[in-house]
């Protein structure tokens, strides 16, 4: 039944002859392990095509969506971490196999007459593969891809005459953004694959035409590839696959850095390991000599590689072979040395390690935020993921704008001349302040703010009464933005609060609240809605207002921060950070998988 069906199909298609052609290629001198590299590379390419297609079904190429979609692949989709991990690490395996393949071909002398074109197609495949690496790296639109691509395209921009225009065309403009992603994506999935297939087809056709290059002492009679050579090829491919799987498992998939942030000042950009030698090489040519390191020498090496098959024409055959091998091993040795040097340089570079540590924290935070059901990636794009995170952005702005004078949990960045902002606006802060307003976390360092200290010396309120006052004032923080003092005072729980009278009679002698207290004894800030977002906002925008600290001498006042210094969005971030209104970091950070 099955056989007759197969016969029927073969009759119409001739597939058996095709399979015979594919599998029974004559191998000169018999099957050998040294012939496995080409087929291992073909296997690895098929793996890339397969995983690449899968990734295409979930990837979204734009600067606002790329990171989110890659995050979704790696952290939400079933086996997404594995598929993306395979694509990422197989790309690296491809580079290693290419290098091994080139070396094998070189040692066997298989690049020489009549196989010159085979060598050139091989070189073309090498450059197509590097093109895949360079374009694929950017696609997640994370910090790593963004900065590495910026460096690579800027090197391109340094080329004489056409450099700047070339860079502008590749990047899709002067700034990196949506057009960069779509262009790189188009090249990666649309342009390079058919180019690779075409070069590969030509390469394989030429291998079939000329055959493998057997060692000199091999028997003269060829033997068919099936089953022995096919078996060896499969063993090699399975071996390569196993190593890649192990690497993917060991890494838990491919890394995804925090979303690209062009404003980030200290991201430690490094290229992928196989470009590290070029990265290090560049350092040897500072200033105006740089083009020698980025263009002239690499270009010359490429040119020599392309011309290797022609060396035979001017030099004796064995001497040319020796020179060629010497040249390539020299280049590889130099590259290896530079790579090790680059890694060692970073190894004990403290600022680099600190920056990497910071980048890792941002990465884990971004992933935790994106995973959280209540947060997720904002519709405007992953670029706003950390910029709308009070723990990241609020803390950063607080450090930059506030901690020159204030401290947070005792830690400041300058000479303290204002209160501790940790837990400011909470009952804790308030009760502590009512106990000892002259303490370091309260008004000790704030010049001119001795009103509370004076009150403490004269007040007759007992500790349990201070508790009640603290309860009452701590409730101010939850007064909604649209509630006026009289509306608030008419609420039953406010009007009947035991702290109301105590506040009115004691605090109200200085602190004014419309309809409740008139102040007058000493100047003091207004406390209505103290600790609420609007109180914070006014304190930051207009600290010199009469209902804030306008009564202090100018030199003792907090400077006002307008929208030019703290945007409305950042103001909101500071307030939410101080009010503890953000996703708390989990005890165990989110890991890939």
């Amino acid at each position, binding site marked *: 039944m099955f056989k007759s069906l197969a016969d029927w199909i073969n009759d119409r298609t001739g597939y058996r002859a095709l399979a015979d052609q594919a599998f029974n290629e004559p191998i000169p001198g018999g099957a050998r392990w040294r012939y496995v590299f080409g087929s291992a590379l073909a296997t690895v390419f098929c793996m890339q095509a397969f995983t690449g297609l*899968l990734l295409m079904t979930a990837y979204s190429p734009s600067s606002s969506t790329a990171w989110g979609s890659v995050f979704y692949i790696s952290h939400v*989709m*079933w086996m997404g971490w594995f598929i993306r991990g395979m694509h990422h690490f197989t790309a690296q395996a491809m580079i290693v196999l290419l290098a091994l393949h080139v070396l094998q071909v070189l040692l066997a002398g298989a690049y020489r007459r009549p196989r010159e074109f085979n060598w050139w197609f091989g070189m073309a495949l090498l450059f197509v593969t590097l093109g895949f690496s360079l374009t694929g790296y950017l696609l997640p639109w994370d910090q790593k891809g963004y900065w590495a691509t910026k460096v690579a395209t800027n090197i391109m921009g340094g080329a004489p005459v056409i450099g700047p225009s070339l860079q502008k065309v590749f990047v899709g403009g002067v700034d990196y953004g949506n057009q960069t992603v779509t262009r790189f994506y188009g090249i990666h999935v649309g342009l390079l694959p058919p180019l690779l297939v075409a070069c590969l087809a030509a390469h394989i056709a030429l291998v079939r035409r000329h055959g493998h290059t057997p060692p000199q002492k091999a028997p003269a009679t060829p033997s068919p590839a099936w089953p022995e050579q096919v078996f060896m090829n499969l063993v090699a491919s399975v071996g390569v696959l196993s190593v890649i799987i192990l690497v993917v498992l060991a890494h838990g998939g491919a890394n995804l850095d925090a979303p690209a942030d062009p404003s980030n000042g200290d991201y430690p950009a490094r290229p992928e390991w196989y470009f590290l030698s070029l990265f290090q090489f560049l350092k040897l040519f500072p200033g105006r000599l740089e083009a020698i390191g980025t263009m002239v020498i690499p270009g010359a090496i490429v040119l020599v590689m392309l011309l290797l098959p022609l060396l035979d024409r001017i030099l004796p055959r064995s001497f040319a072979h020796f020179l060629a091998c010497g040249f390539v091993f020299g280049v590889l040795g130099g590259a290896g040395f530079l790579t090790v040097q680059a890694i060692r340089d970073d190894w004990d570079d403290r600022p680099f390690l600190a920056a990497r540590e910071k980048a890792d924290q941002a990465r884990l935070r971004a992933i935790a935020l994106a995973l959280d059901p209540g947060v997720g990636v904002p519709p405007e794009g992953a670029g706003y993921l950390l910029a709308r995170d009070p723990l990241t952005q609020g803390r950063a702005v607080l450090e930059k704008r506030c901690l020159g004078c204030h401290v947070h949990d005792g830690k400041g960045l300058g000479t303290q001349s204002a209160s501790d902002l940790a837990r400011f606006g909470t009952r804790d802060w308030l009760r502590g302040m009512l106990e000892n307003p002259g303490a370091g976390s309260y008004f000790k360092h704030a010049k001119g703010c001795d009103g509370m200290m004076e009150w403490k010396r004269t007040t007759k309120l007992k500790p349990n009464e201070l508790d009640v006052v603290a309860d009452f004032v701590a409730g101010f923080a939850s007064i909604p933005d649209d509630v006026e003092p009289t509306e608030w005072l008419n609420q039953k729980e406010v009007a009947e609060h035991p702290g109301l009278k105590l506040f009115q009679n004691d605090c109200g002698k200085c602190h004014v609240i419309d309809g409740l207290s008139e102040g007058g004894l000493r100047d003091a800030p207004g406390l209505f809605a103290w600790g609420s977002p609007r109180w914070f906002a006014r304190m930051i925008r207009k600290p010199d207002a009469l209902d804030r600290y306008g009564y202090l001498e100018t030199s003792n006042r907090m400077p006002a921060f307008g929208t030019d210094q703290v945007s409305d969005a950042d103001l909101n971030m500071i307030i939410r950070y101080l009010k503890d209104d953000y996703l708390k970091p989990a005890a165990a950070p989110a890991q890939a998988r």
Partner: protein
Amino acid sequence: MLRRELLARLSAGLGAALSLPLLIPGIAYILSPLRLRREQGGFETLTRLSELEVGKPRLFFIQQERRDAWVKYPREPVGSVWLIRQPKGANPPVVALSSECPHLGCAISLKDESKGFICHCHASAFDLSGKPENAAPPRPMDTLEVALGNDADPEIRVKFERFRTQSEEKIPLV
């Protein structure tokens, strides 16, 4: 010959070892959506009873927070329902009908002069109680759970759900 046979069999095994480690995760990856569960929303307040006239359907938007793969959207319209106030004394006092056609999911609109509902895709027709008036729809329009407050002019709250199309049974999508 034995050696050839052995190598051929081993090669077949190696071929499987080469393809399955990618094929199986690849299939799981493509099937990812089967693992997802739709978030079930609670009751949404749409309007007050006094805003509705007896027997006169009105369309209301359902506003919900929404997660579309990796993106978290704030509250925004995610669907719509027809609310029809029933004559006094009827239970329930308000009927909520999903505007999604049970046939193939197009939007159901009101016929001219509000005499019933029609879906403009394949002409599914329903009367004002949601009962089919022709053979196009497989079942009546989907009623949604309604909850009313206790005050004199109660708030109308509706639990928004979506159901499988083309089925005679009303099966919630999860």
